[in-house]
């Protein structure tokens, strides 16, 4: 039977060994996923909030669509982005394929609906309280988006973290558009997939523990930020 504890120890050893290749992979993972989440938040949060407050025919369908796109399969996103960025594709001139840029692109596509859908829910809940007051202030529905996003910022953190979780954990999209090229586009998840296919299950699991450790570190850092951020004026 496989010994989980030994994989834990293996993970610690790997980290402590200070292997520069491992660190390069860890850093690339973080760079790609954090960039993707950042961009996805810039798109998804206003989008989700607008969807929460706007009233237009077809809004119900739009909400269902955004919710559904949370189920975009990474492999499909990878394929779509691959076809867009490939030399034969419409964005081929950018020469992004098999670069970290392509991986960020694919993850943005994957994560934006998640952040948008969760933001819509949070903002809709807050808006049920704020809506009449804001309109009384003369703030139109769409113009109320920044206010709602700001006042819901602590609740929205969870949406952001869900997006980060998806980005940092997925392998299907980045492996297609990044190619998992050693020293260029190899990240944690693609390495884990590779080691698994080699049958190096202990190593794969150890890398998995390191990846979860990274996720915990990022979450803890954001959690810290949230609680040290003067919670004054927010009750």
């Amino acid at each position, binding site marked *: 039977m496989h010994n989980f504890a030994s994989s834990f120890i293996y993970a610690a050893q790997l980290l402590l060994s200070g292997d520069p290749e491992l660190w390069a992979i860890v850093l690339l993972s973080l760079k790609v996923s954090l960039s993707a989440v950042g961009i996805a938040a810039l798109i998804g949060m206003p989008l989700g909030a607008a969807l929460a407050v706007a009233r237009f025919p077809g809004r119900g369908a739009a909400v269902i669509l955004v919710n559904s796109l949370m189920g975009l399969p990474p492999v499909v996103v990878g394929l779509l982005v691959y076809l867009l960025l490939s030399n034969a594709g419409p964005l081929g001139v950018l020469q992004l394929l098999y670069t970290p840029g392509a991986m960020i692109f694919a993850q943005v596509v994957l994560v934006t609906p998640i952040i948008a859908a969760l933001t819509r829910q949070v903002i809709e809940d807050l808006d049920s*309280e*704020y809506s*009449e*007051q804001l*309109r*009384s*202030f*003369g*703030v139109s529905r769409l*113009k109320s988006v920044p*206010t709602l996003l700001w*006042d819901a910022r602590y609740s929205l953190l969870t949406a952001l973290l869900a997006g980060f979780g998806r980005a940092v954990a997925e392998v299907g999209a980045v492996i297609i558009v990044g190619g998992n090229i050693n020293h260029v586009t190899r990240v944690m998840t693609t390495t884990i997939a590779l080691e698994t296919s080699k049958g190096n299950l202990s190593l794969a699991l150890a890398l998995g523990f390191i990846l979860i450790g990274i996720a915990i570190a990022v979450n803890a850092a954001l959690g810290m930020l949230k609680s040290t951020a003067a919670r*004054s*004026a*927010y*009750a």
Partner: protein
Amino acid sequence: MNQMIAEADFVNATADKHAQGNPMLPLAASGLRFAINGRALVDVEALDIQPGMPTVIMGPNGAGKSLLLRLLHGLIVPSSGSITWAGKPAGKNIQHNQAMVFQRPVLLRRSVAANIDYALKVHGITRSERQPRVETWLEKADLKPLARQPARTLSGGEQQRLSLARALAVEPQILFLDEPTASLDPVSTQAIETLIRDASDRGTKIIMVTHDPGQAKRLAGEVIFIHRGEISEKTPAKTFFKSPSSEQARAFLSGGLLI
């Protein structure tokens, strides 16, 4: 205008001081109906509000007073009927010159001062102008020591004072007040009534709901009495309290039961 005015008659005497030229008035509504599931909650055949001293709306709980204010302020869309301001339908510009204090204050998740600042900002007032105005209104609402406190931790009465100060700060031409002193102690109530009177004297048209006949006597130019969504009467304040014309209002004022 800081002296304390308590005598209803004396107040009435200040009526002539009102700027008669409120550019948004008269407010006229006709055939105004608001129904939910086919039940008419507000059903006002005709309503006409002129410049002058405060118009006070009275009536039993659930009569439709709050719904009427929200209809007039443009927050909810009538099932049928129309509302005009000085002959024009409501629009961006008209909305801009109104403010409302809700029966249940909605305070933003910000500090007390930031709540007032926000209202001024979205009203289009520049940063440099805002700061002194925020200070002034904190002072007037007696909230200065609480300026940095999260607004949602204020006591019930403090919340009500803040939402009133926030509405007055933008110096609206029309101000809707929904029971603005319900949670206030007698001293605060007096102070707030003074603020309301001051605004009214400066030309702001006050349209307010209250359950306190004493307050209505002190402030009202005219009283609209609502019962089951319909206007039973609309009478100058003096007449109303002496001899209301509708049976419903008579029963209400004498403390009888209304069913």
